[in-house]
């Protein structure tokens, strides 16, 4: 199995269905290689064997026999149908969630994944699940079509606005498995990533109690004192990465999905409703907890609320980080072309 | 009546007969294309109707049966006239044929006028495609926007076809009047008439969709 995966460049199979699907994969690809090579070699061999000897050489008519044709057709068709039968059965299995699966709700939007667990918890871009139990995702989209794809599990399902689709999997081994968006959904389609964090029974129970616990070595950023002498600003950077703020915000002055954090602190912000406010600590915190309260002019209301997600320590680290950027140098060199920005910021509003 | 200009086949055809055969076949193939063009729109309509039966019923009821049915009559009559025109031309009655074709074009225009009156009514009531307009503020059923979008889309496309058909017949009429179209190559008028029948037939399908049912 591992050799097969290595040859085919397949990621390790994290889900219960992966092994069988990969076997079919190996089967069809082997036949594909054999048949295409066979055809090519036969053609080459005929060419060598029946090489033209003189310029005006004539040939006898050679024609297929009925029997030969029939054997060929039946042979090929049965090979194809065999694949189809295996493939269809696996497909049905992949599509039908088993009874008693644990349900997680997925809300996709440009360009992030939101997960809502049965106990009321929510998270962005990170889906925490226990191993050994079937998980059923009930998914919908707020804007355009996305597609939920976990290569490690061999599962994928389009996520549509206006209706719900489902997908299920059962993880075999604890670990993290990347989630990618597989349906083109706008400029940052390729950044619409997340991960499945599969935890063993104990870890999962702990997570249920405590919420997101970063792996021990990255405990940093959990608030003052959580990682020795690292400054609060450094912790802010870590949090910004872990919480995916940087998916939308830059620290170097470039405009992205959201405004840059460089030279934000203390500046006067023009809001969409015409108000002007000074970006102080209160404003920054409010922007994280209630992003829709003060929408910056020229941006869309796409930022999710982090109320209940960010711990107090994390929030202060973020605010400290933004404060530290108040004298950041002017954006260097490249800024994204203008069209870029309009297209990016207009991309999702219905006319 | 004899033609003022001798009518010969185009140079890549052996004879007029073959040319006529080609022209007829060409038109039938073209009709197949047209049928699939509208077929796609009918598929859209059917799907949405299944999804929103109530809204579609409401939409149909809102349409004026009288105007729609009147238009059906107008088109049916025009089709009969142009078919008679082809017969007349084949029999060599150029004058009769030209009058019949003129009448057909006239009826086509009548159709367009009636259609225009209907559109005007809709706009007055505040019905625009895509669910825009104040009518939709009073009628909330999901699917109404889809109904009216399809209504405007499909009837407008049909109206464009009527216009094109009238232009084609107009060109043929001028050929008849200038003596380039006569008994020998009556297939040209026939081909034009086939197109006109198609436009008519499409309406026969649109009519129950948007006015009866």
């Amino acid at each position, binding site marked *: 199995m591992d050799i097969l995966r290595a040859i085919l460049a397949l990621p390790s199979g994290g889900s219960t269905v992966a092994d069988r699907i990969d076997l079919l994969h190996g089967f069809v690809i082997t036949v594909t290689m054999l048949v295409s090579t066979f055809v090519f070699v036969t053609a080459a061999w005929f060419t060598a064997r029946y090489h033209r000897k003189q310029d005006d050489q004539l040939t006898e008519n050679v024609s297929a026999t009925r029997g030969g044709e029939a054997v060929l057709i039946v042979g090929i068709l049965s090979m194809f149908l065999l694949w189809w039968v295996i493939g269809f059965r696996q497909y049905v299995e992949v599509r039908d969630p088993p009874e008693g699966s644990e349900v997680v709700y997925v809300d996709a939007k440009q360009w992030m994944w939101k997960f809502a667990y049965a106990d009321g918890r929510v998270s962005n871009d990170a889906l925490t699940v226990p191993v050994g139990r079937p998980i059923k995702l009930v998914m919908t989209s707020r804007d355009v079509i996305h597609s939920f794809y976990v290569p490690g599990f061999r599962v*994928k399902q389009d996520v549509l*606005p206006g209706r719900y689709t489902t997908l299920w999997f059962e993880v075999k081994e604890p670990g993290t498995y990347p989630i990618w968006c597989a349906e083109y959904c706008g400029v940052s389609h390729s950044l619409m990533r997340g991960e499945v964090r599969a935890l063993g029974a104990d870890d999962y129970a702990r997570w249920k109690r405590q919420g997101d616990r970063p792996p021990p070595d990255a405990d940093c950023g959990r608030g003052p004192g959580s990682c020795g002498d690292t400054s609060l600003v450094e912790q802010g950077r870590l949090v910004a990465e872990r919480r995916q703020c940087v998916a939308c915000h830059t620290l170097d002055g470039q405009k992205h999905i959201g405004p840059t954090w460089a030279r934000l602190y203390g500046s006067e912000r023009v809001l969409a409703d015409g108000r002007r406010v000074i970006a102080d600590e209160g404003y920054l915190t409010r922007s994280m907890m209630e992003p829709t309260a003060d929408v910056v002019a020229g941006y869309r209301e796409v930022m999710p609320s982090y109320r209940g997600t960010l711990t107090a320590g994390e929030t202060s680290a973020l605010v400290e980080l933004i404060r530290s950027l108040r004298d950041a140098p002017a954006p260097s060199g490249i800024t994204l072309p203008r069209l870029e920005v309009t297209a990016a910021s207009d991309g999702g509003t219905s006319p | 009546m004899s033609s003022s200009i001798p009518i010969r086949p185009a140079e890549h055809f052996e004879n007029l007969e073959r040319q006529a055969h080609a022209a007829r076949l060409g038109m039938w193939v073209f009709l197949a294309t047209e049928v699939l063009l509208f077929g796609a729109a009918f598929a859209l309509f059917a799907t949405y109707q299944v999804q929103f039966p109530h809204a579609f019923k409401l939409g149909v009821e809102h349409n004026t049966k009288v105007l729609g049915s009147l238009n059906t009559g107008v088109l049916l009559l025009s089709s009969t006239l142009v078919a008679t025109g082809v017969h007349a031309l084949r029999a060599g009655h150029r004058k009769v044929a030209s009058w019949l074709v003129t009448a057909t074009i006239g009826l086509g225009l009548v159709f367009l006028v009636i259609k225009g009156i209907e559109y005007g009514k809709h706009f007055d009531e505040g019905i625009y495609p895509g669910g825009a307009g104040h009518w939709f503020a009073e009628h909330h059923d999901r699917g109404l926007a889809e109904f009216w979008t399809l209504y405007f889309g499909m009837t407008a496309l049909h109206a464009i076809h009527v216009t094109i058909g009238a232009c084609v017949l107009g060109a043929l009429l001028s050929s008849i009047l200038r003596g380039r179209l006569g008994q020998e190559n009556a297939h040209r008028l026939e081909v034009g008439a086939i197109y006109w029948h198609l436009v008519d037939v499409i309406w026969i399908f649109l009519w129950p969709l948007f006015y009866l049912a």
Partner: protein
Amino acid sequence: MSTTPLAPAASPAPEASHAPGASPRPVAHPSYLGVDTTLRSWLLTTDHKRIGVLYLVTLLATMALGGFFALALRIEHLTPNATIVSAMTYNRMFTLHGVIMVWLFLIPSIPSSFGNFVLPMMVGAKDVAFPRLNLLSYWIFVAGSILVLLSTGIGGIDTGWTFYPPYSSISATAVPLALLGVFIIGFSTILTGLNFIVTTHTMRAKGVGWMRLPLFVWSIYATSIIQVLATPVLGMVLLFVVVDNGLGWGLFDPARGGDPVLYQHLFWFYSHPAVYIMVLPGMGVVSEVVASYARKNPFSYKAIAYSSLGIAFVGFLTWGHHMFVAGMSKFDAGAFGVLSMLVAVFSAIKVFNWTWTLKRGAVALKTPLLYIFAFLFLFVFGGMTGVATASMSLDVHWHDTYFIVAHFHFIMVGGTLTAFLAGLHYWFPKMCGRMYPERLGMLSAALVFAGFFVTFFPQFLLGNAGMPRRYFNYPPQFQVLHIVSTVGSWVLAAGLILTAFYFLWSLRWGAPAGPNPWGSRSFEWRTASPPPKHNFRREPPFEIDPYDYTQPLPDEVYQ
């Protein structure tokens, strides 16, 4: 339908030249290239051969443009993040690459250029049934292409060539203009198809029965049926997307009850048959070239001919295999899967027939045949990966990854583009009266094959590893394979540019070809190269089978 002769020079009636005692020595007559050389005479020509040449030149230009975008895409992927362009530019580029390659190049490629040039000769006609419609179709094509290219100037379009709503309904790019362009090109496709259908039915010369048509005609005929029946459906949905995006009608907008998946159904109802529009003409070229260089009758004429029709009709029933993960019912998915298997069998029949045509032939390995070998290998590989994808559980993993990108490039580039190049080499002597340099031809064929393989084989592996398509940024673990692929694209480009060069060179300095350099039997070779305006000065005896290599040609040239 015209009743007034358009061209000034009326040809003498064919009977005259058949008269006994007509001079056996060909009299010098101006070729179709020589009759009138003004620019106007070219742009307003109704001669099917000239229109074929016009298309060919235009299509080579659009292909070079599409290829330019492709090379840029590949260069961008040298590094995981921005290399030469920004995300938005990248998204516009792959969309334009797809749109240009599909609608501005591949769909019209073989039918409109070679089809126009040789099909009337193959059925023994003086021209297509509606020459003026043919010219109109060319200019409609040019107009539509210009619209598509104009849209690039005013913001491009970033939806992918599939234009899925609701994204395409709200994208702030020039969606309406580009889609109108594609819509207009659709008319051109339909008119060309219509012309070929009617020509095949009504213009066959005496003696050319259906079973005596060269196989190329069969495949173009089958292609035309798809063009006429599928294109209008695309036209209709595109129009609704145009008004959705441009006027906000929202027919596919879920907020108003619209159904984006319905769009996908209608789009693929066209676009799956359209992939056979793209490959069937290539298959026609393969049939001609194989028989010609093997100098033998096709292993089974009827099987090849009828499987073209089989593909054309069953191809209409498989569209749903593009939507296995779009949320269709399991039953529908299963049905579409099994129908895809059925349609694949027709292709398999053809493949084995071509291969066995070589058996007991007198095979001469020339450049076109070399391209056909590449075709056989790459098409079978690409086709079988298509069948693999239709084995539905695998598609769940592969859908919208580079595996799919590799699948369709194997067929469209490895298959059709290769067949197009084979046809270009095969018919070039007929079109221009001069030979291309054989050695360079072989060399560039080898370069194209090697470059192609290095470009696209790694993409299968990328797809297996999970690399989604239409990704501007990608996780760094994929970089090695991306670099290999990019390097391959340069080799491929080198092969194509070399080809372009020696063709340009041969136009002027190539060795004169003579009427029938390959000793082929099908009818287009029975006249001078380049052919006279009305194709045959003296009609060949069409009673001879176009694949009869059991006896010498009775009279080489009927010019």
